[in-house]
């Protein structure tokens, strides 16, 4: 199946079909999720209303990690099989992942101030998340740092694969170190320990953010494929003249 869709034409046809579907899923899930997050769900017994920040904070943090793993995996595919589409998927994911990481940090800060009394602490979870943000920025800068696009893509791909070590560090930072950040309460072995009334908006927002990612990915990969075609045509033109 992977080889089948590795063909850019089939990929384009598939993504142009999936683009409106992902858009509708994203809008519906986020719309419904916002209603549950802001109106239907109860305040927390300890954190009162601030718990609502969770519904934009946690999905953003999940997507920050998901996008990074996507970049690292497609970079590995790009390095091993030299497939152009894998590089394009990685490149298109980077700004989306960087935005989610920024949002996880910023909304966390807005949650930390009223609950911990500080906008920022140098805690293991927060610091590893900040490193993730810099990895994204490094990836984007490196990708565009060379005149020869393929060299930039290779250098950025290697960076992203080395940086993937940060992902388990983020995930387990709350178990390995003493942190202010609370431990995992949704993705854990014995199942989530969040009440359904709060799990519903959280999951709706998570589905919405995931669909939003794919919608944006399809838009950006189509644009990148167009730009690639333009570049090829310009090279052909200078060769024939």
């Amino acid at each position: 199946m992977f080889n089948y869709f590795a063909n850019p034409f089939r990929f384009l046809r598939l993504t142009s079909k999936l683009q409106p579907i992902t858009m509708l899923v994203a809008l519906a899930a986020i719309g419904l999720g916002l209603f549950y997050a802001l109106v239907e769900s109860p305040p927390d017994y300890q954190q009162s209303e601030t718990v609502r920040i969770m519904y934009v904070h946690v999905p953003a943090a999940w997507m920050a990690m998901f996008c990074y793993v996507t970049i690292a995996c497609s970079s590995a595919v790009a390095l091993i099989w030299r497939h152009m589409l894998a590089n394009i998927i990685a490149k298109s994911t980077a700004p989306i992942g960087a935005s989610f990481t920024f949002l996880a940090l910023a909304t966390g800060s807005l949650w930390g101030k009223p609950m911990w009394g500080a906008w920022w602490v140098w805690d293991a979870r927060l610091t590893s998340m900040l490193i993730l943000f810099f990895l994204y920025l490094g990836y984007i800068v490196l990708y565009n740092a060379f005149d020869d696009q393929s060299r930039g893509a290779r250098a950025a791909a290697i960076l992203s694969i080395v940086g993937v070590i940060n992902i388990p560090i983020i995930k387990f930072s709350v178990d390995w170190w003493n942190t202010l950040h609370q431990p995992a309460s949704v993705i854990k072995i014995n199942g989530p320990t969040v009440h359904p009334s709060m799990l519903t908006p959280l999951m709706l927002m998570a589905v919405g953010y995931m669909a939003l990612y794919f919608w944006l990915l399809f838009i950006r990969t189509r644009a990148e494929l167009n730009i690639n075609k333009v570049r090829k045509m310009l090279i052909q033109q200078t060769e024939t003249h």
Partner: protein
Amino acid sequence: MLDFLTSFMNMGGYGYYIWGAFGLSAFVLITLIIQSLKFLESSETQLHSLKEKEKNNET
């Protein structure tokens, strides 16, 4: 109704933090959507104009 709205905006005294978090998320994600759509549009115009040029050169 007005009471409901003021208490809704106030969010138990944490309104600034909560609406700040939701507002910032909306701002960043909507900006990303607009930027992505503009990127697609400009790539399509570039490709289209180059194809037109090539057609003119052939004829």
